[in-house]
């Protein structure tokens, strides 16, 4: 059985230059699409992947990642904004690794694009009125 899943991988600093994704392809025959790659403020590597392959190989691949020390989250988590709490200050703009926040240059309101959000969680403690909320 084939599966396609979107996942968020967080690599601690020590793993950033290791050929981990290459092993997923070579050892587990998984196909991948990189949806987003960046380095977070904590100097971790952040990678959002779409992985495609056989279910058992996929499970083994995920197991391999966990054992290697990679933190994995599924993209099913959803981060939303509580519009009543948001003051449109803009503190989140430079925090978000995917550019999910943007300023409307006319009104200077801060717009949130949920489609760009990978639910990394960085904006949640960084938002002063705590307007960003995570849902599982």
């Amino acid at each position, binding site marked *: 059985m084939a599966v396609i899943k979107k996942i968020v991988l967080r690599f601690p600093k020590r793993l950033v230059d290791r050929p981990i994704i290459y092993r997923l392809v070579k050892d587990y025959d998984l196909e991948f699409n990189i949806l987003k790659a960046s380095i977070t*403020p*904590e*100097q971790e590597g952040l990678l959002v992947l779409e992985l495609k392959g056989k279910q058992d190989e996929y499970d083994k691949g995920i197991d391999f990642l966990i054992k290697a020390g990679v933190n994995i989250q599924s993209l099913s988590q959803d981060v939303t904004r509580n519009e009543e709490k948001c*003051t*449109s*200050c*803009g*503190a*989140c*703009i*430079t*925090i978000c690794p995917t550019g999910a926040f943007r*300023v409307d240059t006319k*009104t*200077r*309101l801060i717009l949130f694009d949920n489609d760009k959000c990978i639910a990394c969680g960085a904006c949640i*403690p*960084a938002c*002063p*009125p*705590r307007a960003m909320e995570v849902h599982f």
Partner: protein
Amino acid sequence: MKTIAEINERIKKGQAVVFTAEEIIDIVKEKGLAKAAREVDVVTTGTFGPMCSSAAYFNIGHTKPRIKLGGGRVYLNDVPAYTGLAAVDILLGCTALPDDDPRNRVHPGEFHYGGGHVIEELVAGKDVRLVATAYGTDCYPRKKLETLISLKDINEAVLFDPRNSYQNYNVAINCSSKTIYTYMGALKPNMGNANYSSAGQLSPLFNDPFYKTIGIGTRIFLGGGVGYVAWQGTQHNPNALRGENGVPKRGAGTLAVIGDLKQMKPEWLRGLSMQGYGATMAVGIGVPIPILSEEILKYTTVTDAEIFAAVVDYSDAYPQRKPDILAEVSYAQLKSGKIEIKGKQVPTSSLSSYPKAVEIARTLKDWIQKGEFTLTEPSIPLPGVDAGIVLKSLEERKIEEVQD
């Protein structure tokens, strides 16, 4: 050319001509300074951002039997209030934290709830838990008190902020190689972002840079209600470096403000959590500027491109109190989304809300146009550049051991 009394006559008749500090820029371009100065009565300003030196004091009324909270301990929703006053007067600062808050034990701390959040809840009409202990006296025998209170049950509830509405502020950046968490937000390593906090061309003291109209007793928009300028704010420094247009390029002036908390709104007094730094409160302030002369009108036409702020390294220069700055940038540059520092493009973000500042200036304009808000003549002006103020830093002195 005009007096405040004349402007008030027009306000009462519903005839006052009012613009926000944003709108006035184009009005003066269109009509010219002289004509606009004759026609315009008031320019309204606004700012909404974190203001740590904010507090409220309360008189909670006497219990039966009586309790003397003065010298005892009082908590409001677990946040400690100051009790060094009379029997049932207490003061709550917006940065106060519950005793058991983990603070920065695991860095960066989250600071979910503090004094500012309690003030916001009270203003929203909610009940707050008051838990107090006292030492007991002959006239105030009681030693313990646990009760709910709300703003409608207590006598006075007064917002009293020793320092708000800074005339200008630093732009914070981080030159070190690790993320730092400051009162200017999270700053990414190697100049990864730059944070600023001012409404720029809409901000009250940028529109009256020499305090020609704003003084002690000026009636203002405060926290969604009406308040007053009580005094110059702490650290008021009129002698900060100024540009040729007179606009300060550094911190400069500040306001101490006061007003009845009971008529304020939670939307304009918001508890905030600054990751790794602490709890605070966002305060909404709007100051009306009476257009008494062409000179005063001219000041209100200042634009973001003409206002400059200093970029300061918060990993070293700021904590070590070094005077070094990395650059001066205008608010127009800051609002473009990036600034260039040492050849690097640095993305910018703001901590104060411009859309909320606009809303405040518009609300104040609306109140004045409807005749609901008249202007006051200040009793005395704020100390100006000739007041001889020198901002002091603390130079530590040894405490000699006391010989008996």
